[in-house]
């Protein structure tokens, strides 16, 4: 059984004039120690997906359907008290901006001790001891001194190390990292990413990496999901998707990478922009931007088809597969 299994998750935002469907039928699973990438444009629902896994969608958002199973137990149906035992303890989360995620008026040590005390009966002295070992683990220079320092006394990279240390504090089984390096200097980005990867491998922690940086995702993760307008449109082994993307949107994303273009040439871009949630097009949400769009795409949402090890939701792909199958049958017949 997978460690985390999300089945047909629907998340909606209740606003005036009806519900906005932020997530539509999201399904995926995460095994112990696996590294999963979640890719998509801003507004595709990546962060909503991350928060809903912890059942922490703020009003007016709510989980309208589906299950989030952590070792078979449904988080979507749990009481707040039970959920609190899981948050931070079994599933931890790392946010984008290390400047904002630490409480500015509490010292690093206080914040770490707080986190430990919220989940365990532990003395302050013992909690500080654990905090110190974690700070050492994330290779923060002179960790003893840092315990009594405040967030504004640390640099961005150091703060993100502290945040990773806090995420690791309770030895979680899953870490959800929501664009953990976006707010950092390019030189620090690689360092922090490598550290996160190393720590996850060491403790066999599953990592769910949310990013719009395909480069990072392709290097770090084993499997990936591509999201568009609240749906997963393609999911499978990262290498397969990067080398041979099936969905026209994923193909566009990969083509838009600077390293894919000719030197000096204009970068490729997917025409148009993602539809807003209150104006989702009929059928496949990508069809207004898709060069292969047909009437079929405009009318109904495509289901998933399997191509190799990749699940993809696109009529173009399913039709191609169908054609290939027919050709094969004809060849066999003749």
């Amino acid at each position: 059984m997978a460690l985390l299994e999300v089945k047909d998750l629907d998340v909606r935002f209740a606003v005036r004039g009806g519900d906005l469907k932020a997530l539509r039928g999201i399904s995926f699973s995460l095994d112990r120690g696996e590294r999963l990438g979640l890719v998509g444009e801003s507004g595709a629902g990546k962060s909503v997906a991350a928060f809903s896994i912890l059942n922490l969608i703020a009003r007016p958002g709510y989980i309208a359907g589906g299950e989030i199973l952590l070792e078979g137990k449904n988080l979507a149906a749990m009481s707040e008290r039970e959920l609190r035992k899981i948050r931070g303890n079994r599933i931890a989360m790392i946010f984008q901006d290390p400047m904002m995620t630490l409480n500015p008026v509490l010292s690093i040590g206080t914040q770490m001790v707080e986190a430990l005390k919220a989940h365990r009966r532990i003395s302050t002295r013992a909690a500080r001891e654990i905090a110190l070992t974690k700070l050492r683990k994330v290779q923060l220079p002179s960790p003893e001194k840092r315990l009594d320092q405040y967030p504004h006394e640390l640099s961005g990279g150091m703060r993100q190390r502290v945040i990773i240390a806090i995420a690791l504090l309770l030895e979680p089984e899953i870490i959800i990292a929501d664009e953990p390096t976006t707010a950092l200097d390019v030189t620090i980005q690689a360092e922090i990413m490598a550290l996160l990867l190393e720590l996850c491998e060491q403790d066999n922690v599953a990592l769910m990496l949310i990013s719009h940086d395909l480069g990072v995702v392709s290097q770090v993760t084993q499997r990936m999901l591509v999201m568009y307008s609240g749906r997963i449109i393609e999911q499978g082994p990262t290498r397969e998707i990067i080398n041979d993307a099936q969905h026209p949107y994923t193909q566009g994303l990969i083509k838009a990478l600077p390293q894919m273009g000719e030197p000096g040439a204009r970068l490729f871009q997917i025409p148009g922009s993602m539809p807003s949630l209150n104006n989702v097009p009929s059928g496949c949400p990508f069809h207004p931007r898709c060069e292969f769009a047909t009437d079929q795409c405009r009318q109904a949402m495509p289901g998933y088809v399997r191509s190799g090890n990749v699940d993809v939701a696109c009529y173009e792909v399913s039709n191609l597969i169908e054609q290939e199958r027919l050709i094969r049958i004809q060849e066999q017949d003749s």
Partner: protein
Amino acid sequence: MTTATLSRWNRFRDSFLWYSFKRDKVAIASFMVLLAMVLAAVFAPWLAPTDPYDLATISIMDSELPPVWITGADPAFPLGTDAQGRDMLSTILYGTRVSLLIGFGAVILQAALGILFGLMAGYMGGRVDAILMRIADVQLSFSTLMVAIIVGAVFKASFGNLMYGEIAVYMLIFIIGVAEWPQIARTVRASVLAEKKKEYVDAAKVMGFGTRRIMFRHILPNTLSPIFVIATVQIANAIISEAALSFLGLGMPETQPSLGSLIKSGFDYIQSGSWWITLVPGLVLVVLVLVINLLGDWLRDVMNPRLYKG
């Protein structure tokens, strides 16, 4: 422990608060005057030449003696005496003590109520917010004095004068504290609304912290500077409210006078020439309230996040 306090002291010495305090002459002067008055009030039993609460030491023969710089004064009473022959200096020292006690006590009560309700209203929002803030609106639409007059009159009638004298301090703290909590609650609520949108609150939720823990341990420390500023001003307000009530005869009884009841007790004798019984405690009250307000102004400037990002 000693290293911790030492580093805290160093941190304070490096802080913007200390830096701007050192450069602001008005703040330093106000602080000095306030400190002197608070110390004098706290140590009144040791500083005062006589005990104004001890009727045995008072002689009616000494009544209405003028301060020393006027002819006819008795050097034993540097600020003169009141109509009952009590030494004015001692009475003022004890009176300041009572006024300060009520001022601080009332603000502590206000802050306790205001922080609790302000945090709940701001953080929980929705119905809790609507109900608490409507209660605050209703509370604010009554003037403090009106509520105090009604409650004070009821207390006085039901407990009798002797008993009333014993509970008057607590009653005043209670009335002024309860009447003014919405001021602090609104301030707290406003800053909580701004704080709760910040990412560290999300991070705290993700860590599985409970609502109470997030409210008191994570958001409250971030809203302390506006609370601090308004509390300072509220101390001055509470002292004035108390003085006004005492002046109206609904505050401290004359056997344990506060500054307000001293002013009142001298008021009847102004026409007969004994102006010092009203004027001297009046001046003390003005100076006390003025320095607190000046310090409050300074704090507001220093802690204004638009001027300084901490």
